[in-house]
């Protein structure tokens, strides 16, 4: 009996004291960036390299340059397991430390945070994911999804298929299947693909795979029956490697299977072994650890024992992507400092930096990222930047770039995007801002 009493008292105490721990620590002279990561759960294969890339790049900036123009970057990880509710909890908890920007790395969490951003004055940078419509900065001043949106990506994929088939007019009558994660993320590309199917006359089949994506047997039975000419995959986490393995198992021609840029990292193809050879995926930057920035990371971060990943994991596709993401964040903050001074900034000041970000070829070279990605320019109207897409292919050991930089089919995407922005903004009760007045 006494045990039970003691227990109930203890429990009551624990429950009462529970979330007290979220009390904010003292503010220091730094810029705080929360990192919503998922190093555990079914999405960990994708989440781990991302988390490592962010931590390493921010550490690099702090170690090599002493921060951004002398202002250190403080960052803290919070585990979300790619779960929307946990992500919101993380965001709310870390909000007490006045973050200036957040990279949710989950379309679901991005959707949750978009309505909060204007009130909290926190910039959302959803790089190549999130809500496509938010690329219209006139309606969504706080959300940035440069260098490219899902819709642009899907159009670039169709363009690539057209090139391979010998011209877009050859697409007529071809069968293309889209295997997608059955969530806002996976569904995002569907309207664009449907529109392009009407325009070019290819036959589109949409095949949904439910969370977390481990179970795809029925999907691949359908693929067998359908025998599509091309497969486009929008997966994430454990779903990707299962898809690649299944495709290899049924002997599908791997060079006709193209993942989107979240479906093409080492963790997705290595488990399938040689079967994955020839598999392609979209991307917007180069893979590999052969850039100057990587040498800097090794020298300033790993040699000091502060590296987050194993040395050989540096340069993985998603690692590089997050390093680029972190670099863009840092450069946006640097841009903001040209206006607001070299001191800890507010979210509003950083937002100005994002909106006036002009990343030139020269700056990329200074950063040691020449050739790794393309120059980028963000404007008030266009939060998508002017990104171009690439296609990479797995040769059994590493990813190789196999296409030129491709312009998405903007004349189809942009009008659709602007219409969607009006629609989405209406739901949130936003009014359109006049970009001409804000120069």
């Amino acid at each position, binding site marked *: 009996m006494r045990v039970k009493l003691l227990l109930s008292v203890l429990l009551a105490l624990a*429950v009462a004291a529970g979330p007290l721990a979220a009390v904010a620590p003292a503010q220091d002279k730094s810029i705080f960036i929360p990192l919503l990561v998922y*190093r555990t759960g079914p999405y960990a294969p994708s989440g781990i390299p991302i988390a490592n890339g962010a931590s390493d790049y921010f550490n690099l900036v702090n170690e090599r340059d002493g921060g951004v123009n002398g202002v250190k970057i403080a960052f803290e990880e919070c585990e979300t397991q790619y779960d929307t509710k946990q992500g919101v909890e993380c965001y709310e908890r870390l909000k007490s430390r006045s973050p200036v920007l957040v990279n949710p790395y989950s379309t*679901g969490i991005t959707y949750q945070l978009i309505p909060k951003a204007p009130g909290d004055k926190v910039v959302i940078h959803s790089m190549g994911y999130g809500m496509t419509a938010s690329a219209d900065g006139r309606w969504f001043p706080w959300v940035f999804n440069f260098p490219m949106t899902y819709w642009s990506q899907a159009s670039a994929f169709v363009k690539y298929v057209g090139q391979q088939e010998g011209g877009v007019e050859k697409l007529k009558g071809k069968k293309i299947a889209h295997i997608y994660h*059955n969530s*806002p993320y996976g569904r995002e590309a569907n309207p664009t693909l449907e529109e392009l199917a009407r325009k070019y006359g290819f036959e589109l089949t949409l095949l949904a795979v439910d969370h977390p994506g481990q179970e795809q047997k029925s999907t691949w039975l359908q693929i067998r029956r359908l025998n599509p000419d091309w497969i486009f995959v929008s997966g994430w986490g454990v779903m990707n490697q299962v898809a690649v393995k299944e495709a290899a198992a049924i002997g599908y021609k791997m060079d006709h299977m193209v993942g989107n840029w979240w479906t093409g990292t080492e963790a997705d193809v290595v488990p399938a072994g040689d079967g994955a050879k020839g598999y392609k995926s979209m991307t917007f930057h180069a893979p590999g650890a052969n850039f100057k920035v990587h040498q800097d990371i090794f020298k300033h971060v790993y040699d000091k024992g502060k590296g987050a990943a194993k040395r050989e994991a540096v340069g993985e596709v998603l690692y590089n992507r997050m390093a680029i993401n972190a670099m863009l964040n840092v450069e946006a903050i640097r841009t903001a400092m040209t206006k607001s001074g070299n001191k800890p900034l507010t979210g509003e000041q950083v937002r100005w930096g994002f909106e006036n970000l002009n990343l030139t070829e020269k700056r990329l070279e200074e950063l040691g990222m020449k050739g790794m990605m393309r120059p980028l320019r963000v404007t008030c109207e266009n939060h998508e930047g002017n990104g171009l897409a690439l296609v990479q292919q797995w040769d059994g050991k590493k990813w190789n770039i196999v296409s030129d930089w491709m312009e998405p089919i903007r004349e189809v995407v942009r009008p659709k995007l602007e219409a969607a922005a009006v629609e989405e903004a209406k739901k949130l009760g936003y009014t359109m801002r006049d970009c001409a007045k804000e120069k």
Partner: protein
Amino acid sequence: MIYRTAGQFKTTYASDQAIFPIVQDRVAVTLALTAAFVIPPALASEYWLQAVLIPLLVYALAALGLNLLTGYAGQLSLGTGGFMAVGAYSAFKLSTAFPHLDIVAVFLLAGLVAAGVGLLFGIPSLRIKGFYLAVATLAAQFFLLWLFNKVAWFVNYAPSGTITAPDREVLGVLVTGPNATAGARYVMALAFVAVFGLVAKNLVRGRLGRAWMAIRDRDIAAEIIGIRPLRTKLLAFGISSFYCGVAGAELVFLYLGSAETQAFDINISFLVLFMVIIGGLGSILGSFLGAAFIVLVPIFLTNAPHLVGLGLPVALQKQIELMVFGALIIFFLIVEPHGLARLWQITKEKLRLWPFPH
């Protein structure tokens, strides 16, 4: 000493049948409820309201609903997430189709729709029991989510398939949508929980609740003494689904703001079932205690290492959290299989005897 009942005589039927027959209980509950309405909106930070208290209230309502069905009527259900989804999606459809409809009415109507669906899936309970019924309700969970994922009409043809809570007011104060303050949303959720908690308490004390318990304890005997199993069981499914439906609407409108079917997946059903089991089957208080345990303990475990200044890697911390949480659940169920509500009851009995236990 403080908790003494000496001198409190019940001289009328009304006082004998009161929900809280002891004066101290009445005072404590009134004070607690008033405090709940006043203190958090005034003092709590947005983190507390948004990430801790609102989900706590939403889950408490869902647990209450499942407790009526599983705890009182003895019908095991794994379809809670599905019924919550029905509430959420119908609230979304109703509020977008009839923008001038009062949001309270929207919630209640959404509850009614969920009740209807619950009735439908309750029909098999007449023929099957226990684990078999659990599997039948599991089918509801999968079917309903599949339906909402498949049919674009439910999400107003949004390409992303998410539903978003629109801005709606109660008495001139924004309570839903992204522009509503966390305080307003909290008060709204609390008001719903307070009213429905009271209704549930009275339901289970009355004729219907007794019939449910009779069915739960020995259905054949119950039938012999004149309880109609069809009506009683279906009512249990209907009322339980009503509660879950309102909780689902709250989950989207007051807590998340926007959601997809993923928010209502099978994990929610399990979570709410755990709340009921840990809190105490067949106890109204237990629903609240169970919800508090399941919502607060993981948050406490996440924050605990920070509290003592331990800088663990997040992945390790998450794994430790899951292990400790699992161990705690097992431990509590071994120490007190009747749940937290029973612990509270024991404490109360002891307090009444204190300081002279016999």
